């Protein structure tokens, strides 16, 4: 992404030409609306607004407004912070290279406050009052289900970043994370082949995503791999005591512990697993719910040796990712880590930009229609492409957790995996 650097530098030098006095003068006159046009000379060279915006979205000759809708307060703030950061970074980078159709992206951020009705209300505000041309947002399936009717009723465009259970498809949503089969099947195949796994113990937090995912996993294990599930259990969200189930695992001695535990429970589970003497270098554990973000809280020493099936790891060795990680750390601090969902959130603004430019229009209907086939070659995970079903073609990867909280890439699917939100034979 060398062009990004040069754009940044150009901005800096043009800023440096102004004398301190002139800058002061400008600040003083900033109240005059005419001056704001002068301060962003790069924008405004795109096609006429009347041509690219026929439905009254918040698009001017120089600016286009998008929404960011995540929880920055409440219990989900832990997870959604990374997505907000990634989306802001992408928007800043897009602006630095000239925006979308010659227009600078301006964002309005709303807080879903970890409360699903609030998400719906804020989504309505972003679409009806602010006329956002697209919205990057939501994290949990519950919040997505809450906003979906709003996006369909008011015809908005949502870029949803989280890997999720599938069984959904909408004209008004682009799913930039994996649906369940993309995350589950390749991982199980890998563990069956490489580790010779014959028996699985399925664990999960008790809500729709882990339950649906484990259902798919069980079907695959029993019908395709012809091996067996020796236990399947769910725990209430926020459960912190896992000693009993760990004893059960010790008794049943499964080849693989397949864990889809989320949130604070995650930390308790891995700490107690380690304390109970289960050595993850000998006991294979495969998870689809622990990204680098979660390891921050769990502690690398508690989870080292576990395998995770994702599409992105911060440690991926490619030029796109190196530039992305460097830019992310520059913007949000050296210590921040980047997990799978954060990367998927970063794809949102870029895919939207590519789609708008392909459609040569901000109109929701045209963007939705143009989405299929849109590709993003600069994706940190490598190349991605939007499928007709509005999910992404992407690669499944398996990583092994290391002491320092990073994953080491162990396996990568040779081809892009087709998204299949309504998998036949798995329901």
């Amino acid at each position: 992404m060398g062009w990004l650097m040069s754009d940044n530098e150009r901005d800096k030098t043009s800023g440096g030409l102004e004398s301190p006095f002139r800058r002061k003068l400008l600040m003083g006159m900033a109240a005059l609306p005419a001056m704001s046009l002068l301060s962003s000379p790069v924008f405004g060279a795109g096609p006429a607004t009347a041509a690219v915006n026929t439905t009254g979205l918040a698009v001017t000759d120089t600016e286009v407004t998008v929404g960011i809708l995540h929880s920055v307060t409440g219990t989900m703030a832990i997870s959604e912070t990374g997505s907000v950061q990634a989306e802001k970074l992408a928007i800043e980078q897009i602006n630095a290279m000239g925006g979308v159709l010659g227009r600078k992206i301006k964002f309005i951020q709303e807080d879903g406050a970890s409360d699903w009705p609030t998400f719906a209300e804020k989504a309505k505000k972003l679409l009806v009052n602010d006329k956002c041309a697209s919205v990057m947002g939501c994290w949990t399936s519950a919040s997505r289900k809450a906003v979906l009717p709003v996006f369909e009723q008011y015809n908005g465009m949502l870029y949803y970043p989280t890997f999720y259970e599938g069984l959904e498809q909408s004209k008004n949503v682009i799913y930039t994370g994996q649906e369940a089969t993309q995350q589950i099947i390749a991982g199980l195949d890998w563990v069956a082949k490489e580790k010779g796994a014959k028996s699985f113990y399925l664990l999960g937090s008790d809500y729709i995503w882990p339950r649906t995912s484990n259902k798919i996993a069980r079907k695959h294990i029993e019908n395709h791999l012809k091996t067996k599930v020796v236990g399947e259990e769910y725990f209430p969200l926020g459960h912190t005591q896992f000693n009993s189930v760990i004893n059960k695992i010790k008794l049943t001695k499964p080849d693989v512990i397949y864990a889809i535990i989320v949130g604070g429970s995650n930390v308790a589970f891995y700490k107690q697993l380690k304390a109970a003497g289960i050595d993850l270098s000998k006991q294979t554990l495969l998870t689809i719910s622990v990204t680098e973000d979660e390891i921050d809280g769990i502690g690398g020493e508690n989870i080292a040796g576990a395998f995770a099936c994702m599409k992105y790891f911060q440690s991926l060795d490619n030029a796109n990712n190196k530039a992305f990680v460097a830019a992310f750390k520059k913007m949000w601090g050296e210590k921040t880590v980047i997990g799978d969902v954060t990367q998927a959130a970063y794809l949102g603004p870029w895919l939207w930009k590519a789609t708008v430019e392909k459609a040569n229009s901000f109109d929701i209907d045209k963007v939705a229609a143009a989405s299929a086939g849109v590709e993003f070659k600069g994706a940190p995970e490598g190349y991605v492409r939007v499928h007709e079903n509005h999910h992404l073609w992407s690669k499944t990867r398996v990583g092994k957790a290391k002491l320092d909280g990073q994953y080491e890439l162990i396996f990568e699917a040779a081809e892009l995996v087709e998204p299949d939100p309504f998998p036949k034979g798995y329901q």
Partner: protein
Amino acid sequence: MRDSPGTEQLMFGDYSIGDLSSIFVMQGFAGLILFSVFVLMALGLAIIFGQMGVINMAHGEFMILGAYVTWMTSGFFQNNLPSLFNIYFFVAMALAFVAAASLGILVEWALIRRLYKRPLDTLLATWGLSLILQQTYRSVFGAREVGVELPQWMLGSKQVTDTIEIPINGMFVMCLTVLITLVVSYVLYWSPFGKQVRAVMQNRIMAGAVGINTERVDRYTFGLGCGIAGIAGSAFTMIGSTGPTAGQLYIVDTFLVVVFGGATSLLGTIASAFTISQAQSTLEFFLSGSMAKVLTLLAIVGILMLRPQGLFALKVRK
């Protein structure tokens, strides 16, 4: 091959007596560890609720304050005193107590003491306090969870026999719980301060009339309860997560233990923690996690309907 490999059937079948007995022992320990965790969570709340009648909805946030203090202490020792890292946890627990108790005393002075005559308003006020504290943690420490690093000796498990392994952090929590329970019962039942506390609880006006400074007693009781919450939070960094809202993970169980035990009695709290933890850990072993919780809660609801005052109730003249 079994035709339907449900978990229940798997418990028996082709396991040797040795396997089963060692699981029995480990499961016993799992229950005891859960019991210790419950007691530790509930002690602070029981003192405040039992002695002062204040329902402290911010109890979980006082625990998390202790956890954050532990996290900061661990960072400090790692950077400045790496040679003493092995024992930092004890320092951290002391600091957690001091921090949570000081905040408790401050809160009592600024908020609670104005609301003693309006118990329902304390409920609302402490709930508001819990929201404020959560957001404060989020602003100060960030929304993400932090990982508290533990010294090597506190990790892993102790191999008792070939098949029996006991988690070290669980043992640690058990010892800590016994110690703190002993100290608290000494303070409440044998020390002069405890006599004052109980006098104030039984009859505030008379206690004031015989020269007890009831305001001061209230303040220190509240501080003591919060301080114990801080220690609990510090200890739970070993077994759980440390984040702005992690306190919410514990608050429901904590209230359950206190209410079920009969709020005014320390013995009641302990008995109720024991009952709930054993029921839950046994059910969890034979059924699944969610079902165990459902059955435990149903049983508690049933018992509380028959005995609304909880397991143990102190007879006080109203």
